[in-house]
């Protein structure tokens, strides 16, 4: 294509682009959806981080022990760095659970007497299962009591000349090796998927309006009788839709960068590795994907029977790729480098690398972005064909 014909094509497209951008950016409902979703997830993420750190700082389980004088040894051995035990002479378990105790242990009144007679005295455990911390507290106390019980059994068997090992062919001990840093990394791993989801959500309303909406209002027919090639119509619509999706994700990235210094990341052992260059790079790697998402949404909406039908189909459509990314992440599937050529997967890998400051290959980024752009071109060709379908017209 010569420079003159390229200039002429662009000049021909400019009014069409202006129309699509004015229509898209003046749609308050679509803008509100895009801005709200784009800001919502960084704010939620920051909130989740704060809660996680707060939870860790309040790690010790508070236990109220009633009747400790009946079992002084038990009271002494139960306390540990993870279990803060308060000895109380008396009290109502329900009130104590409401007063910040995670769990209440009540030693039966005749505990010492029955214990000495080997008659299995009772210990009552009170928990409020509707409290989210109750499960952890119950597990900790039960594990501690079971260990003490085993110790007593061993002593009793040894006193009778029986080797305790005979009753325990092996010993099981669970050790949690997770560190605050690795738990924090789990939070950051969700960011690429959420940024990609933002591309879909922020552009959904506009993609439906510019395709199924125009079809339903019959303004598409007016556009199609203008002396413009169908590919220009699709490209103009794609750029307008992608602008909302892309700027939505840029808004999310900006919000993240602004919120990160306020997030207690250091307490999770995470060093903020995002640089200005990294942020710009994140924006750039999302651009080809924004175009692909936009044109695919337009294509799908053009195939729909109505505006409502398009909304339903696109809502389902945006869940599928994000689910795929979640599965790949959750299953911790190790992907070969060549997988970076695939749209979505490539962008997810690069965004993750840029966020945590690990090495990202510029060559793979370039190759993957070009592969995504090649798919955009194919989708535009299909879109231009779709515009020539007679069933697009009303009553045709």
């Amino acid at each position, binding site marked *: 294509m010569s420079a003159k014909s390229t200039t002429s094509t662009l000049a*021909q497209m*400019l009014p069409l682009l202006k*129309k699509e951008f004015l229509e898209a950016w003046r749609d308050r409902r679509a803008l509100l959806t895009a801005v709200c979703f784009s800001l919502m997830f960084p704010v939620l993420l920051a909130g989740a981080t704060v809660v996680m750190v707060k939870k860790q700082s309040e790690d010790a389980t508070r236990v109220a022990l009633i009747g400790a004088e009946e079992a002084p040894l038990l009271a002494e051995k139960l306390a540990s760095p993870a279990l803060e035990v308060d000895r109380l002479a008396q009290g109502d378990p329900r009130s104590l659970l409401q007063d910040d105790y995670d769990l209440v242990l009540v030693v039966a009144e005749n505990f010492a007497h029955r214990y000495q007679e080997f008659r299995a005295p009772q210990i009552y455990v009170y928990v409020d299962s509707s409290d989210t911390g109750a499960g952890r507290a119950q597990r900790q106390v039960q594990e501690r009591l079971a260990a003490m019980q085993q110790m007593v059994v061993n002593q009793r068997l040894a006193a009778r000349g029986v080797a305790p090992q005979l009753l325990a062919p092996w010993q099981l001990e669970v050790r949690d090796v997770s560190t605050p840093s690795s738990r924090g990394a789990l939070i950051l791993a969700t960011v690429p998927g959420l940024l990609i989801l933002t591309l879909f959500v922020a552009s959904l309303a506009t993609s439906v309006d510019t395709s199924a909406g125009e079809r339903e209002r019959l*303004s598409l027919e*007016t556009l*199609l*009788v203008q*002396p*413009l090639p169908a590919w220009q119509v699709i490209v103009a619509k794609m750029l307008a839709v992608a602008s909302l999706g892309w700027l939505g994700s840029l808004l999310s990235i900006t919000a993240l960068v602004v919120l990160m210094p306020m997030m207690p990341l250091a307490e999770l052992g995470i060093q903020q590795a995002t640089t200005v260059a990294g942020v710009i790079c994140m924006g750039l790697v999302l651009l080809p994907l924004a175009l692909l998402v936009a044109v695919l949404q337009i294509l799908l909406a053009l195939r729909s029977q109505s505006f409502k039908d398009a909304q339903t189909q696109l809502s389902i459509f945006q869940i599928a790729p994000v689910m795929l990314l979640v599965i790949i992440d959750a299953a911790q599937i190790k992907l070969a480098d060549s997988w970076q050529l695939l749209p979505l997967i490539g962008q997810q890998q690069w965004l993750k690398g840029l966020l945590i400051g690990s090495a990202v290959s510029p060559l793979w980024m370039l190759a993957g972005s070009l592969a995504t752009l090649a798919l955009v071109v194919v989708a535009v060709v299909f879109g231009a064909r779709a515009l020539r379908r007679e069933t697009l017209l009303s009553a*045709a």
Partner: protein
Amino acid sequence: MISVEKIRKSFAGKPVLRDLSFEVPDGKITALLGANGAGKTSCLRIICGLLQAKSGRVLVGGIDPAVDPQGARRQLGVVGDREGLYERLTVAEYLKIFAQMQGLGSGELQGALDAVREELELSALWERRMGGFSQGERMKVSLARALVHRPQHLILDEPTRGLDVLAVRLLRKTLLRLRAGGTTILFSSHVMPEVAELSDSVLVMSEGRVVGRGTPAELGRETGCESLEDSFVALAYGRLPARQEVEPA
């Protein structure tokens, strides 16, 4: 001139146009009459290049829309069976964008916009966004969009549907002025008095064919009916109007 030569079109195997042929002479107003489902809209859409005929040929100012759709569309102004407006654009923005799409350069653009604003009495609406416009206002803007690039051929699909008296009068005045300026006009309608008053020639369509053509007076002579409405019923339905059938011999 618009020339339609033996075009055929089917939807889902059902024939809609059967060897349809007619000509719309330059500088004349031609009306397309037909019952619902007669094939009027399909015919107009083939002329605009929105639909492809199964066989036959259409020429708009000598250009076949099936071969060079963009060339043909540059010669056409089209007002469809709905206005196709964009509610978030102002009238000025809308007309400017569509004029530019039609290839009007900066030199001629402002003059063209000023002309349609004056001709179609759009000054009060000019800077308003089009959401909430009345039917008459929508039709005026739609007509302005079709005329802004001064097309040689104008196609209108049921342009008076839903319009009040004043809007119909403005439309009629505009079409007559355009004809005087040499524009070729083809429009479909169900409103017989309007067709009788406006058109130089009438094409009556039935089941995808032209079953009658001529001036309203010529159709009256052919069918022996006094009014265009009676002539249409006789030609389209193959029988005399009911009130004539019950009259005593």
